[in-house]
């Protein structure tokens, strides 16, 4: 590794497991307000605070250690990932602040490249980069605190799916297997770059179409908890889902890697947390790894009225968004997620 590269340690793989987080948050003191439209309770993607009857503020923060060695690319991915939480709520990006941890002795040229990558993504999102906070730390971390806006009646909650809905996913799965496998020398450069391109892609383009579509009941972005983890939150203990493995978008080489023992820590943490909720009706071990794979800057997962799905899919695909209809929400069954 040369001097102007980053040490890779995880991206969204670094996220603290959902199983450990819930009990901690329950005990925090808090003030109730009718204007706090989305807070801790729903484990949603961002907080939403009503300012007026026709305007609510979205607030979210996201940062993590590098998952790629190129600082400029890391900046882009970190920003795209943080901005995504605003889109997952159905909102638009207003402004963003940088969050930086950077070692005292490291070359500041690296930091400049990280910030440049991030700033370009904020610009692409139409947001105002308006400041930030940086500290010295042993390892590099980068992300954004993002402010967005949404009409209070048009918030897309992450737990509002309805039985009969179809589930649409807007990016392929498997980016952790590809990036971590690449760092370990087991995944090709081509596979790695496919993951990077996908992680750099803003979810704004998908949301611009989803926001205008009819029949969208629920939306979240697929990140550290993997497809099954975020789908579990969407089903909110009230529904089950049937995922059609044949329609699941994933990177071909990630599937290969999963079958050749590229096992990430985050993927196994997700499996531990979710395995008694998920039923695999086909014997396909690599696919199991794919649905538990933590995503960094993953796609949007949308629950949409079945009648609106063909038009929504056609519009997404016409805009070159690799969206797929991956399955249906059903009445609650014995288990939560059936992969068929």
């Amino acid at each position: 590794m040369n001097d102007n590269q980053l040490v890779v340690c995880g991206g969204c793989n670094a996220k603290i497991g959902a199983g450990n987080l819930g009990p901690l948050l329950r005990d925090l003191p808090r003030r109730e307000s009718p204007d706090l439209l989305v807070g801790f309770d729903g484990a949603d993607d961002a907080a939403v605070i009503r300012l007026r009857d026709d305007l609510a503020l979205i607030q979210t923060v996201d940062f993590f250690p590098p998952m790629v060695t190129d600082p400029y690319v890391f900046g882009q991915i970190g920003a795209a990932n943080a901005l995504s939480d605003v889109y997952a709520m159905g909102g638009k990006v207003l402004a963003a602040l940088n969050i930086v941890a950077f070692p005292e002795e490291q070359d500041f040229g690296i930091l400049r490249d990280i910030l440049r990558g991030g700033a370009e993504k904020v610009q692409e999102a139409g947001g105002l980069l308006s400041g930030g906070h940086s500290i010295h730390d042993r390892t590099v971390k980068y992300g954004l605190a993002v402010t967005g806006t949404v009409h209070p009646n048009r918030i897309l909650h992450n737990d509002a799916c309805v039985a009969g809905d179809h589930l649409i996913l807007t990016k392929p799965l498997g980016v952790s297997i590809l990036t971590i496998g690449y760092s370990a020398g087991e995944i090709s450069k081509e596979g790695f770059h496919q993951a990077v391109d996908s992680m750099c892609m803003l979810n704004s383009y998908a949301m611009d179409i989803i926001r205008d579509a009819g029949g969208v009941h629920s939306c979240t972005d697929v990140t550290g908890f993997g497809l099954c983890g975020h789908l579990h939150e969407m089903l909110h203990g009230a529904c089950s889902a049937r995922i059609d493995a044949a329609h699941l978008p994933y990177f071909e080489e990630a599937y290969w890697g999963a079958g050749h023992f590229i096992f990430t820590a985050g993927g196994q943490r997700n499996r531990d947390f979710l395995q008694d909720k998920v039923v695999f009706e086909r014997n396909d071990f690599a696919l199991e790894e794919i649905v538990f794979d933590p995503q960094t800057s993953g796609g949007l997962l949308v629950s949409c009225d079945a009648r609106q799905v063909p038009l929504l899919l056609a519009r997404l695909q016409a805009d070159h968004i690799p969206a797929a209809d991956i399955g249906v929400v059903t009445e609650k069954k014995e288990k939560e997620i059936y992969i068929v």
Partner: protein
Amino acid sequence: MFQVNALGKACPLPVIETRKALKEHDTVQTLVDNKIATENLQKMARQLGYSYSMTEDGPAHYTVVIAKGEQTAAVPAPAAPSRAVKDDSYIVVINSPTMGTGDETFGRTLLKNFIYTLKEQDVLPDMMIFYNGGVPLVTDTSDSLDDLKELAAAGVQIYACGACLNYYGLTEKVAVGEITNLYRIIEILRTANRVVRP
């Protein structure tokens, strides 16, 4: 017993190093410093049909032993993606309203006959991809609509480029197959065994 010391190493390295050691040795002992790594080693052992045992020696010290001995019969290695297999499979790309270059009316007739005759082949294509000038063929006014529906019924997956349909204002007129995007089309072209272009 051969030992892999993976203390201080993050996933997936403990698994990768143990896997490599198992190519040379029948039994491998691996030291790791976290429980998740032991679970990943166990997943690998299970996939390979090898025996697995683990002892927790301390708060951040686990010893895993994986041995080939317990293997019953031949356990298949994890399957590679089936799409990588080379065989007599093929896909067909149609990107123009005509077959070949020359007289346009004749070219259109040739293409219609091509699709009709495709149905009679011993091996049908896995997929047919339509883009640019080819997309009108999958719409409701296509001369080849019935032939394409027969092919689809016989299991041929038919895909049309969404951006192309949009450009020609045909998105609402698609009468056979599925709409897809350039990303998927490139993936299909890239991984296809053989690509046939009339």
